[in-house]
C-alpha cells in the first residue's frame, strides 16, 4: 500500500516534469520558428568588452555602432527591416568571448560583432566560423584577422589593420623628410608586433634606414629604463622613434622616454590615440604623432561637417565625448554592414558573407573607404589621420594613405 502510493507520487512528479520540459521545448521551437519565418528584422549580436583592459577599445566603438543602428532604423531600416541588437559583455576575457558568441548564435543572430582585438576575438571567431555566421571584429588591427585561412572565411575586421597603420606611419615620416628611424617594439599583442614589422619594411622600402631596434614586454606594468639607456647610446641618433605599442603601456613608454630627457619626435600607431595619452604624457609633451582614424572632440583641426555631426550626435546621445577615434570605426562598420545587408540575397550566413566580400566603396565622415574583398577581410583602403600632440593638445596634422603594403611573406592576403 505504502509503496504503491509512493510510486504513484513518483510517477506524478515524473509526468509533471515531462510536461514542463515538453512545454519548454515547444515554446523554444515555436519562438525559433517564428523568428526565422517572419524575418521582419535583422539581428546583430554584439560580443564586446564592457570592462577589463580591452574595454577602452570596445566600449566607445560599440556605442557609436548603436548610434548608427538607431540612425538607420529611424530612416526605415535595411530594405524595410529594422536592425535589432543583442549585446553581451565579454569582460576582456577570451574564455567569455567563446561562450558569449555560442549563446548569441543560439539566440539566432544573423551577424556577429567581436571585440577590437585579434587575440580576444579568436575564440568567438572560431565559434562563428563553425556556425557559418559572419563575424566582424569591431576594430581588430592585426592582419591575421583578415586572411581567410587563419580564423576562417566568415571572419572580418572593420579596421584598416596595424599593418596599414605601421606602413602609413612610415610613409608619413618619409614624406616629412625623416631618414633615420629607431623602432621600439611592444611585444605584448599581435597588433603591436605587426605594426612594428610593417613600419620597418615600409620605411626601408621608402629609402629610410632603421638605426636601431629594441623591444619591451608591454602589458600593464611597463618600464623601459633599460631600453632608454640603449636608445641614448644609439649611433647615429635617429630622427624619430617609432613606438609600436598601445595604451596604457604605450603612453607609459612615451612618458618614460620624455622623463629620461629624450626629445626625439615619436611616431606610433592608432592604439596610442585617446585622451588618456594626453593625461599620461602631460601638458609639456610635444612632437608625438600617431596615425589615428579621425580627429574630433578632444582633437581639433580636421574640417569635416559629417565628422563634427558624428561627434555632436555621439556626445548628445551618451552625455560624453568619444575619447578616442576608434569610436568612428564602429559607426562606419554599421554603415558598411547595412550596405552589404541591403544587397544580400537572403539573411542566411553564406549570403550575408557573399554580400560583405562584394562591398563597394563607402562614403564616411573621413572620406571614401573600401571595405572587404574575397581575399582581404579588412578595410582595404582608408585614409588615416595623423594627429600631433603638442603642449597638452591634440591637433590634426593631415591625412595619409599607405598606397601599398610591403609583402613580408607572412600570409597577409591584403599585402602587395
Amino acid at each position, binding site marked *: 500500500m505504502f509503496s504503491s502510493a509512493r510510486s504513484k507520487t513518483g510517477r506524478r512528479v515524473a509526468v509533471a516534469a515531462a510536461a514542463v520540459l515538453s512545454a519548454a521545448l515547444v515554446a523554444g521551437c515555436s519562438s525559433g520558428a517564428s523568428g526565422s519565418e517572419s524575418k521582419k528584422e535583422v539581428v546583430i549580436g554584439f560580443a564586446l568588452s564592457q570592462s577589463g583592459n580591452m574595454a577602452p577599445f570596445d566600449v566607445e566603438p560599440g556605442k557609436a555602432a548603436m548610434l548608427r543602428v538607431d540612425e538607420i532604423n529611424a530612416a526605415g531600416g535595411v530594405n524595410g527591416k529594422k536592425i535589432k541588437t543583442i549585446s553581451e559583455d565579454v569582460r576582456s576575457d577570451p574564455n567569455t568571448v567563446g561562450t558569449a558568441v555560442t549563446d548569441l548564435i543560439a539566440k539566432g543572430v544573423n551577424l556577429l560583432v567581436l571585440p577590437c582585438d585579434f587575440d580576444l576575438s579568436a575564440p568567438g571567431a572560431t565559434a562563428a566560423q563553425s556556425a557559418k555566421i559572419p563575424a566582424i571584429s569591431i576594430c581588430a588591427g592585426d592582419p591575421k584577422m583578415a586572411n581567410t585561412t587563419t580564423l576562417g572565411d566568415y571572419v572580418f575586421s572593420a579596421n584598416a589593420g596595424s599593418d596599414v597603420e605601421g606602413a602609413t606611419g612610415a610613409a608619413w615620416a618619409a614624406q616629412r623628410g625623416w631618414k633615420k628611424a629607431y623602432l621600439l617594439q611592444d611585444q605584448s599583442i599581435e597588433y603591436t608586433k605587426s605594426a612594428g614589422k610593417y613600419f620597418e619594411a615600409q620605411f626601408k622600402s621608402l629609402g629610410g634606414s632603421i638605426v636601431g631596434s629594441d*623591444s619591451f614586454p608591454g602589458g600593464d606594468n611597463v618600464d623601459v629604463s633599460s631600453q632608454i639607456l640603449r636608445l641614448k647610446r644609439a649611433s647615429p641618433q635617429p630622427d624619430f622613434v617609432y613606438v609600436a605599442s598601445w595604451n*596604457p603601456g604605450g*603612453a607609459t613608454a612615451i612618458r618614460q622616454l620624455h622623463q629620461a*630627457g629624450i626629445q626625439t619626435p615619436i611616431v606610433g600607431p592608432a592604439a596610442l590615440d585617446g585622451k588618456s595619452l594626453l*593625461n599620461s604624457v*602631460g601638458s609639456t609633451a610635444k612632437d608625438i604623432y600617431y596615425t589615428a582614424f579621425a580627429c574630433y572632440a578632444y582633437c581639433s583641426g580636421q574640417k569635416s561637417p559629417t565628422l563634427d555631426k558624428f561627434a555632436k550626435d555621439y556626445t548628445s546621445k551618451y552625455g560624453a565625448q568619444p575619447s578616442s577615434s576608434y569610436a568612428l570605426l564602429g559607426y562606419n562598420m554599421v554603415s558598411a554592414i547595412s550596405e552589404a545587408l541591403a544587397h544580400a540575397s537572403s539573411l542566411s550566413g553564406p549570403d550575408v558573407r557573399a554580400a560583405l566580400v562584394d562591398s563597394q566603396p563607402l562614403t564616411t565622415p573621413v572620406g571614401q573607404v573600401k571595405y572587404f574583398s574575397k581575399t582581404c577581410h579588412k578595410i582595404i583602403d582608408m585614409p588615416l589621420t595623423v594627429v600631433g600632440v603638442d603642449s597638452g593638445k591634440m591637433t590634426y596634422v593631415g591625412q595619409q594613405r599607405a598606397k601599398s603594403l610591403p609583402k613580408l611573406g607572412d600570409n597577409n592576403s591584403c599585402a602587395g
Partner: protein
Amino acid sequence: MSVDFLVAMVGLGALYALLTIGVALLFGILGLMNFAYGEIIMAAAFAMYLFQHSPWPVAVAMALVFAVVVALLSERLAFFRLRDADPVTLMIASFAVSLAVQSVARMTVLPRAQGVSPKSFLTRHLDLLGASVSVRELLTLALCGGALAAVALLLGRTGLGIQLRAAAENFQMAKCLGVRANLVIPCAFVVVGVLAAISSIVLVWRQGSVSADMGLQPMLIGVVGAVVGGMSNLRGAALGGFLLGAATTLLETVLPANLIAFRDSFLFTTVILVLIVRPQGLLSGAKVRVS
C-alpha cells in the same frame, strides 16, 4: 657599468624590495599570504589619479590615507574573524578580498585605465658622475630606500617594533607576555598600508596610468620576492625583492631585442633554480609560524 644603469637597477631593486616587505610583514605576523596587497596599491594609485590636479603633497597624503583605510578595512571586515584560522584559509580569504575590491573598483570608479599627468619635477635631470640621471629614478631610489630604512628602524628600535617581531616569532607566547593582539595586528596593517602607498606613488610616477588590475603584477613580485628571499625573515624578503628587481633590469639590458618578450621566462627560471638549491629561501628565518 654606467652610473645611469646602476641607478635604474638599484631603483627598481629598491621598489621591488619595498613590495616584498609589504607581503612578508603580514606573513611573518599573521601567517597571512596577502593576495589583496595589490588592491591596497591600487587604492593608493586611485587617490593619485583623483587628486592629480591638487598640489602633489595633497595627492601623496591622500594616497597614504586611501591605502591605510583599505588595509585596515580589509583587516576589520575579513581577516579579524579569521585570526586563528590556518594559513590556507587566510590565503583564500585574501584572494576573495582581492577579487572583491578589484571588482568594486572596476564597477564603480575604474572601468578602464586612466592616465595621471606627470609632475614637472619628475622630468628634470641631474648630472651625476658624468651621466645624466633623471630625478624620477633618484626619487624612486630615495623613497624606497627611505621606506626600507624606516621599516628597519621601526622594527629594530621601537617598542612597537619589538612587539611586532615578538608576534612574528611566536604569537601565542607574545600574547602571554602581554603583547596586545588587538593593537599589534592593526598596526601591522597600517605599516603595510603605508608601504603599499609609497610603492604605489612610485609606480604611478613611473607609469602614469591607473587601472583596476594594476596591483596584480606588483603583488606577484612581492610574493615571489618574499619566497626567494625567505618568507619569515624580513631581511631575506627585502634581499629577494631587491635581487628580483636588479635581475629584471639586468635581463632587459643583456638580452637581445627579440628575446626581451621572454624576459619573465628567464627571470622565473632563475627563481626556480634558486628554490631548488635553497627551498627555504636565501636568508631563511628560524621557522614559519603555522597556527
